C-alpha cells in the first residue's frame, strides 16, 4: 500500500480501516520521516482542539436563549416566511436599544421584518401617529391607511418634508410583475421604513422595518442621511424591473392612480 498524506491523516483521525492502520504502523516503524509526519498531524489536532474554546466556555447570551424559546417573532407554526437574512436579525437586535417601547409593539416590528410574504399578524395600531394607525391588518395582508396611504398616493419621491408631513417617499419603481411600488419612511413616533405596492384594493405593505427616527431635527423632520434598512433595500433589489421611475414616469403613474 502506498502511504500517502491523506492515509496518514485518516490514521490520526481514527478513520483508517484495519488494513490501512497496519500499513501505516509498519511504515512508521520503518521510516522516521513518516513517524515525524504522523506526529505533525497529531500536533495540529492538539493545537486546533483549543481554538475557539471561548465559545464553549462562555455562557450563551440571553438573546440566543430567547431565540430558542421562540420569543423573536410569531410562533413557528404561524410564521409564514423565514427571516430574510442576518440584516433582519441585526435590525431587530439594534432597535430595542433605541427608546424602549412596549414589548407587544416590538413583536409586531420583528414580524414585519421577518415576513416578506406577510401573513397573519395581530396588527393593531401599527405605525400609529397619534391615535390613527398608518398600517392595518386586513385579513392577513398589511395595508397602508391614513397618512401613509395618502402620502403614497400623492407625494413626490425624494421631496423634502414640510413640518406637517410624517411620511417621506424614497423611490418609486415598477416591478417585474408590473406593479407600482414605493419605499417610504414614517419619521414620527417609533419610526418605520418600508415598501408598499399598489394593489387594486390599496397600498399593500410588503416589507417594513423599525427605523428609529434618530435624524429628526427639532422642527420634526428628518435630516439627511437616514438610511433605508437593509431588509427594505434587499426587497427593492429583488422586485425592481430596471431603474426607478424618473419624475416624468412617476407623474404619469400617479395620474393613472398607480395602476397599469
Amino acid at each position, binding site marked *: 500500500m502506498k502511504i500517502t498524506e491523506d492515509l496518514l491523516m485518516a490514521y490520526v*483521525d481514527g478513520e483508517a480501516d484495519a488494513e490501512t492502520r497496519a500499513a501505516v504502523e509498519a511504515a512508521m516503524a520503518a521510516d522516521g520521516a513518516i513517524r515525524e509526519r504522523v506526529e505533525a498531524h497529531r500536533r*495540529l489536532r492538539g493545537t486546533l482542539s483549543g481554538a*475557539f474554546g471561548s465559545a464553549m466556555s462562555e455562557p450563551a447570551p440571553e438573546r440566543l436563549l430567547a431565540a430558542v*424559546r421562540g420569543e423573536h417573532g410569531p410562533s413557528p407554526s404561524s410564521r409564514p416566511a423565514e427571516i430574510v437574512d442576518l440584516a433582519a436579525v441585526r435590525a431587530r437586535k439594534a432597535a430595542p436599544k433605541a427608546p424602549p417601547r412596549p414589548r407587544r409593539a416590538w413583536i409586531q416590528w420583528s414580524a414585519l421584518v421577518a415576513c416578506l410574504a406577510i401573513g397573519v399578524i395581530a396588527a393593531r395600531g401599527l405605525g400609529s401617529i397619534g391615535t390613527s394607525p398608518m398600517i392595518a391588518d386586513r385579513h392577513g395582508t398589511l395595508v397602508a391607511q391614513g397618512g401613509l396611504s395618502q402620502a403614497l398616493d400623492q407625494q413626490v419621491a425624494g421631496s423634502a418634508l414640510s413640518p406637517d408631513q410624517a411620511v417621506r417617499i424614497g423611490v418609486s419603481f415598477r416591478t417585474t410583475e408590473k406593479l407600482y411600488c414605493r419605499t417610504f419612511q414614517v419619521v414620527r413616533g417609533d419610526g418605520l421604513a418600508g415598501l408598499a405596492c399598489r394593489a387594486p384594493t390599496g397600498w399593500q405593505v410588503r416589507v417594513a422595518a423599525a427605523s428609529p427616527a434618530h435624524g429628526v431635527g427639532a422642527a420634526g423632520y428628518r435630516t439627511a442621511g437616514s438610511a433605508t434598512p437593509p431588509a427594505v433595500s434587499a426587497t427593492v433589489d429583488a422586485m425592481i424591473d430596471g431603474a426607478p421611475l424618473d419624475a416624468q414616469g412617476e407623474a404619469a403613474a400617479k395620474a393613472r392612480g398607480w395602476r397599469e
Partner: protein
Amino acid sequence: MKRLSPFVSSLDRESALDRFQREIVDLLPRLRRLARILARDVEDADDLVQLCVERALGRRDQWQAGTRLDSWMFRIMKNAWIDETRARARTARVTEQGLEADHVADRRIPTMELRLEANAAERALAELPEDQRVAVALVLIDGLSYREAADVLEVPMGTLTSRLVRGRMALQARLEGAEIQVR
C-alpha cells in the same frame, strides 16, 4: 400586585422548554464555535446562531426524532451562511472581516504560550478558503466523523477528505513554517 423579577420569569420560561428546545440549548456552545469559524467575527457569529436557531424552530417538523440534531443544525447553519454571503456579494456590502484574534481566543487558557498557540491557530484557520476552513472545523475542532461532516456539507466523502488534506497542509505550513510535499 408586584411583578416578578425578570430573573424569576426567565427561570420559569426556561423550565417550559420542550425537549427539542433543551437539546438546542445544549448545542449552543458548539453552534457558536462553528459560527465563529464561519463568520470570523464574534457578533456576526451570534447573529448567525440566532438565525440558525430561528430556522430550526420554524422547521422542527422536518427534523426526524432519533436522528442527530447537531448535524441537522450544522447543516442549517451552513446553508444560512451561504445565503448570507450571497446576500453580501449582491449588495456589495463592505464588512469588517478582520479577525480580532485575542478577542476570540479563550482567555481561560492557562499559559501565555498555549494562548499564543491557540491564537496563531485561529488566525491561520481564518486565512483558509472557506470550504477548507469548514471541513477542518467540523472534523478537527468539533470532532465529527468524515461521514458526518460530509453529510453536513452535503458533499461526497472524497470532496471532504480532499478539502481536509489541503486545509491541513496549509495550516501546518503556516503554523510550523514547514514546506510539506504531498506524496
